[in-house]
């Protein structure tokens, strides 16, 4: 309060920006300058200037010159949002030999001139905001960025196309990668597809080489049928625990000959790879080109594990690789960066009861159809009704199932339009059936996508614009007998229509993984309210997260098609290699520290930290903060009942002084 009496301990320069007329049109910039000059000398303001564009090189030189000539010890720039130019001005100050963290930026554009109209009021608000920052900056401390070394190994979670791409890029760059996949084989959803839009080249043909390359790459350790169970540490220095689930197959001995699979007497529905449309043996590899090609024994379904007899696989295995006693393995690896390419779940169409999936036999999900149309799938590529023989004569394909629907998901799943067009083509090609597409809007934005759309139109597919209300098996007229009737409002004709078909293919939307939240917690990143992982910046930084060293690629952050997922995998890899090559990483020095003399070890703060940066030292009876783990949120500072925790960059002194300032009479 009474600091007016004391002689100010800092020399502060205040710079008010016109931003052309962006600010000066509403804020009396000169007025602010003079007011600060006059009223804040007591706080240490020795110079206040205004300038047309502070961010211009001339504007920056102005500051640098004053720092040198007037010996400024603090700088306040009133201009735009710190998120735009904080770095600019801090660097400028640094060039003039002033620690960057002694410069503060006040947003009088985004928070004043752009959002208020009354000039007097706006100017008054500008004065108070500047006053607040002047009082704040007096309490700023010179800070140094923290440097931590980077472990050159990388963990990639998810063996889909995005993960494979990321792993290959890094491995080819000469660094080691652990590629962890939950399922028995690499490949992800892409391995289930038959053709890929818009080129229609065979999915397996383009994916397999990548899988093999990843599987055999000297710099890649592939860990399939494995899951990450624990992550600790921070960028550059994560230690990760991986559970390698028991395959009941000794990978050293197994040659992947497949005799065990052949001899296994028991079949079960394969609801993972075959999307529930086909069967697999109890000991199996999900598909022929699986990488690695060691089979996995499905223990819950295995007759031996149920009844204690059978062991057919063991009897016939030429290399005695079958090991019923094999246990889960726990591996610990040290990595510097982690890329999450955990992909998506398919929307469960049975939730939309009006479409009858699960009730009406000939309503198929998109993945079911992918498997059906796949020549290596359960029907050897024949497109047939649920009876397994009859070819459909008319087929309806429904878009936006579970997408763009506020009952389920608001988002557009991005791939469904193109996927549906692909389906239409495949149905025609295989069966020559009449195909109807029911769409809300047709979205074909990427390269040569719309050309593909045109092609499908030319192939004679019938397009009906409207969201399907219901799929029913209850006929109203003789023509509908024994058919599935699609009830839809054709919004182009403006009529309700009932279209009888033999088969319906639902274009299921993409959803975040059911366990996305838990996985997020495991790695210390968060999901947005719709469940996808949050990028650091949706446009300018789409593959990194708020947690340093944790990156995301592919559908983990939202629906994407194959090209987008691949690019993200590569982008994430590039980011990781950039970090590795820097050898060490700089962390923002906004951190919490505990004064151990004041700390009474009450442990109130102990569960405040989601990054486990806070640790209690039992024998000393005090708590400490690991600065490298600390992300600087300040929650523990605010929690400490003894006031023993202080935070750099946003200290109590800074904020309390700022409150005094912004409440100054102006």
């Amino acid at each position, binding site marked *: *309060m009474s600091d007016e009496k004391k002689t100010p301990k800092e020399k502060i320069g205040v710079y008010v920006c016109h931003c052309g007329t962006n600010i000066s049109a509403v804020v009396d910039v000169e007025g602010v300058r003079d007011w600060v000059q006059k009223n804040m000398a007591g706080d240490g303001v020795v110079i206040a200037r205004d300038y047309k564009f502070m961010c211009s090189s001339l504007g920056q030189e102005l500051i640098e010159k004053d720092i040198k000539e007037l010996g400024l010890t603090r700088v306040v720039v009133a201009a735009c*949002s*710190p*998120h735009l130019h904080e770095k600019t001005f801090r660097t400028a100050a640094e060039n003039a030999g002033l620690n960057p963290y002694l410069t503060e930026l006040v*947003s009088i*554009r*985004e*928070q*004043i001139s*752009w*959002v*208020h*109209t*009354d000039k007097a*009021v*706006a100017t008054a*608000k500008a004065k*108070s*905001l500047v006053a*607040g920052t002047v009082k704040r900056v007096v309490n700023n401390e010179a800070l140094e960025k923290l440097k931590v070394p980077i472990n050159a190994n990388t963990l990639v979670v998810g063996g889909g196309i995005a993960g494979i791409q990321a792993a290959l890029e890094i491995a080819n760059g000469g660094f080691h990668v652990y590629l962890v996949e939950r399922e028995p084989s690499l490949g992800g959803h892409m391995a289930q597809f038959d053709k890929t839009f818009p080129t229609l080249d065979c999915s397996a043909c383009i994916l397999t080489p990548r899988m093999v390359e990843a599987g055999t790459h000297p710099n890649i350790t592939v860990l399939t049928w494995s899951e990450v169970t624990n992550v600790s540490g921070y960028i550059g220095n994560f230690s990760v625990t991986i559970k390698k689930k028991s395959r009941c197959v000794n990978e050293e001995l197994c040659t992947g000959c497949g005799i065990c699979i052949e001899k296994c007497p028991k079949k079960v529905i394969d609801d993972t790879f075959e999307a529930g449309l086909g069967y697999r043996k109890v000991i199996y590899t999900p598909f022929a080109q699986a990488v690695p090609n060691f089979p996995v024994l499905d223990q819950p379904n295995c007759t031996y594990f149920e009844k204690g007899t059978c062991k057919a696989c063991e009897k016939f295995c030429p290399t005695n690789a079958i090991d019923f006693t094999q246990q889960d393995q726990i591996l610990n690896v040290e990595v510097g960066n982690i890329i999450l390419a955990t992909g998506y779940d398919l929307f469960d169409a049975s939730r939309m009861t009006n479409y009858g999936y699960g009730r009406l036999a000939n309503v198929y999900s998109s993945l079911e159809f992918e498997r059906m149309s796949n020549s290596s799938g359960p029907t050897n590529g024949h497109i047939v009704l649920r009876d397994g023989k009859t070819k459909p004569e008319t087929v309806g394909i429904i878009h936006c199932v579970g997408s763009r629907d506020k009952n389920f998901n608001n988002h557009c799943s991005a791939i469904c339009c193109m996927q549906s067009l692909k389906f239409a083509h495949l149905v025609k090609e295989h069966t020559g059936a009449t195909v109807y597409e029911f769409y809300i809007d047709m979205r074909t934005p990427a390269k040569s996508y719309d050309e593909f759309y045109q092609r499908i139109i030319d192939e004679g597919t019938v397009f009906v614009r409207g969201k399907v209300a219901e799929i029913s098996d209850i006929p109203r007229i003789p023509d509908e007998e024994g058919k599935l009737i699609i009830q839809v409002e054709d919004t182009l004709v403006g009529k309700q229509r009932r279209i009888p078909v033999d088969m319906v293919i639902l274009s299921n939307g993409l959803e975040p993984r059911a366990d996305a939240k838990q996985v997020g*917690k495991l790695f*210390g*990143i*968060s*999901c*947005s*309210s719709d469940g996808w992982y*949050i990028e650091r910046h949706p446009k300018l930084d789409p593959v990194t997260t*708020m947690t340093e060293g944790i990156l995301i690629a592919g559908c983990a952050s939202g629906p994407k098609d194959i090209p987008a997922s691949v690019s993200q995998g590569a982008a994430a890899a590039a980011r990781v290699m950039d970090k590795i090559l820097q050898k060490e990483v700089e962390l923002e020095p*906004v951190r919490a520290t505990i004064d151990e003399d004041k700390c009474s070890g009450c442990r109130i703060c102990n569960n*405040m930290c*989601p*990054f486990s940066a806070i640790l209690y030292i039992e024998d000393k009876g005090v708590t400490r903060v690991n600065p490298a783990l600390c*992300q*600087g*949120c*300040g*929650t523990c*500072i*605010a*929690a400490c009942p003894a006031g023993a925790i202080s*935070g750099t*960059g*946003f200290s*109590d002194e800074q*904020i*309390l002084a*700022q*409150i*005094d300032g*912004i*409440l100054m009479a102006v």
Partner: protein
Amino acid sequence: MTEKFEPVIVGFTCNWCSYRAADAAGTARMKYAPNVRLIRLMCSGRLDPSFVIKAFATGADGVMISGCHPGDCHYISQNYKALRRYLLLRRTLAGFGIEPGRVKLVWASAAEGLKLTEEINAFVEEVRALGPLNWPKWDGAAEVFESELAPHIATEVPA
């Protein structure tokens, strides 16, 4: 007091969601009430109740606390701590006669510039309705108003 009372409100925003929401509102030129003066914190979890009390003691009529939506916190879950503190602080301030309506917790994502401005406008009206708080500046100034109050009700004639 014919002219309408313009409340002074201190707003605390987190660096990642609500402050960016304010940026977004600015970029989109959304006009809103000028009564709120924002202070940026790294996270709503940094908000120390002392800041709110300090603001009231220093002349604020209302205090707005804003952070990322529950579940969207950039520090995973810290906004929940802000929520808990906010709820207990309001109860405590009530004991001082500071209406709970003078403190408001607002969730706004970086994309919700519009929501933030609507919340601000609404809050300004709510505080306007509550009227000025003008908590005494005890040091020095306080003496004046105390002397006004001083020769007090003790001078009551016996019944």
